[in-house]
């Protein structure tokens, strides 16, 4: 009875809270939509901040380069090592280069790059813009007759959209190198044989799908980081939330996009 009473007592407030949360979720979706729309509206209009785009590309590349090199190489080595026993059971060790390259080129390289970039670059963009928002630097740009959205958001989103596919390509080659070193050490396969076998099963659609994925991931990481930072509130707490939100949301979206793009690429095969 007491339980029923307590449920009756709290049900309306819980319902109201749920209603508020649903409303807040749809409001956020609308804001994100408006933010993306604003990006596409402003990105093609002058002034073009070329210097800032180049600077941001450099920042994105430098921030992730070491970690991506290390992670890419380790992924290549580990994946090759882990795959060997299964292939040995079927007497198909010679397929190892093909298996490694398919896994790396089609899935691992863009995904690993995107996840690292979401952590390193996404959080950094979220924190940087969030900090600029709460210290009124964005307002200062606005009142001086300049376009902060163009200078801060468009440049960073362009930079991540350009740089992350480049980093993904680099990750693929580093991971393949890791795979080659492991195969070479264990099976004594030469570099040219490894590469020949590695690229043989891959088609143009595979490269294109992988590149498309990296472009979409790059755009997502940039736009999510910028959205979280640009709309940051509540002082230093807001900056932390913006950085955290940028990473969590970007990673979640990257996985969803991975599934969708794999599905779409499948239709073209």
């Amino acid at each position, binding site marked *: 009875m007491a339980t029923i009473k307590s449920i009756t007592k709290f049900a309306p407030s819980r319902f109201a809270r749920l209603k508020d949360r649903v409303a807040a979720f749809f409001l956020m979706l609308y804001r994100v939509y408006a933010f993306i729309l604003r990006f596409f509206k402003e990105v093609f209009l002058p002034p073009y901040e070329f210097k800032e785009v180049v600077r941001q590309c450099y920042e994105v590349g430098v921030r992730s380069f070491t970690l991506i090199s290390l992670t890419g190489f380790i992924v290549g080595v580990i994946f090759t090592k882990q795959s060997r026993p299964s292939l040995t059971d079927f007497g198909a060790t010679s397929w190892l280069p093909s298996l490694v390259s398919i896994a790396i080129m089609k899935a691992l390289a863009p995904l690993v790059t995107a996840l690292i970039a979401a952590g390193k670059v996404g959080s950094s963009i979220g924190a940087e813009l969030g900090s600029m928002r709460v*210290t009124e*630097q964005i*307002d*200062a740009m606005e009142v*001086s*007759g*300049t376009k902060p959205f163009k200078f801060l958001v468009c440049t960073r989103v362009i930079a991540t959209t350009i740089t992350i596919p480049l980093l993904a390509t680099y990750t693929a080659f580093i991971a393949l190198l890791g795979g080659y070193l492991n195969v070479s050490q264990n099976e004594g396969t030469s570099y040219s044989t490894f590469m020949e076998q590695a690229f043989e099963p891959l088609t143009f659609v595979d490269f294109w799908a992988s590149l498309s994925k990296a472009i979409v991931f790059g755009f997502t990481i940039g736009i999510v980081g910028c959205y979280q930072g640009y709309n940051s509130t509540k002082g230093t707490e807001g900056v932390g939330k913006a950085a955290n939100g940028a990473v969590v949301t970007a990673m979640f979206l990257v996985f969803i996009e991975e599934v969708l793009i794999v599905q779409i690429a499948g239709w073209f095969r």
Partner: protein
Amino acid sequence: MEKQKAHIDKNNTVIKVRGLEKSFADYDVLRGIDLDLYQGENLVVLGRSGTGKSVLIKLISGLLKPDAGSIEVLGNDVTAISERELQELRIRIGFSFQNSALYDSMTVRKNLEFPLVRNRKGITRDEINKNVESVLDAVGLSHTINQMPSELSGGQRKRIGIARTLILNPEIMLYDEPTAGLDPITCIEINDLINEVQANYKTSSIIITHDLTCAKHTGDRIAMLLEGQFQRVGTFDEVFATDDNRVKPFYDYNFTE
């Protein structure tokens, strides 16, 4: 330094605010503000923390939208003009932020160049350098040109913030708590700088503060913001010639032992 007599043109109103209202959630911050700022005048807005002083200048500069009322700045209705027109109008208004709001990833030089190169199309490198040196000289900080904002003191940051607004030769200056968090000597320097800007750049200014020394030294007119409205407007002596217990403590705290 004593404030020179300002040349105020009372026939020329550069900012005209009527019936301005602004609320946040359930709190009515501004409840029908009327305000005129005359050409060449320094108007100080005094009030307790949280009474909406900063909100007022953010509404004037178009950073916030009012719930009701009209704001006319240099003949433009800020609430009705397009984004592009607002951007053009903002070039004519300088806004000095409470925490300076210097771009912390840029040097002092880049901070000053930022609004200039984006608002003066076709400006040459020589002209940029000349303008940067001129405003830095005006605020007495030429030696900081290559420093990062993190290397500057609070007072220096305020001065660079003011220099960044001066580089566009604004007709109106909006100062948000220009002396907040500064030592008394630096406060005097900032007060003098505000008066120099008024005299040399012929600006009309709104100065938001709760520092009565700043108000006394810089203001040609004082407006006391209480309970969302201007309750007392006049010269410094006129405003404080009262026994109103909402106004008197301001004076007593600053000027009586």
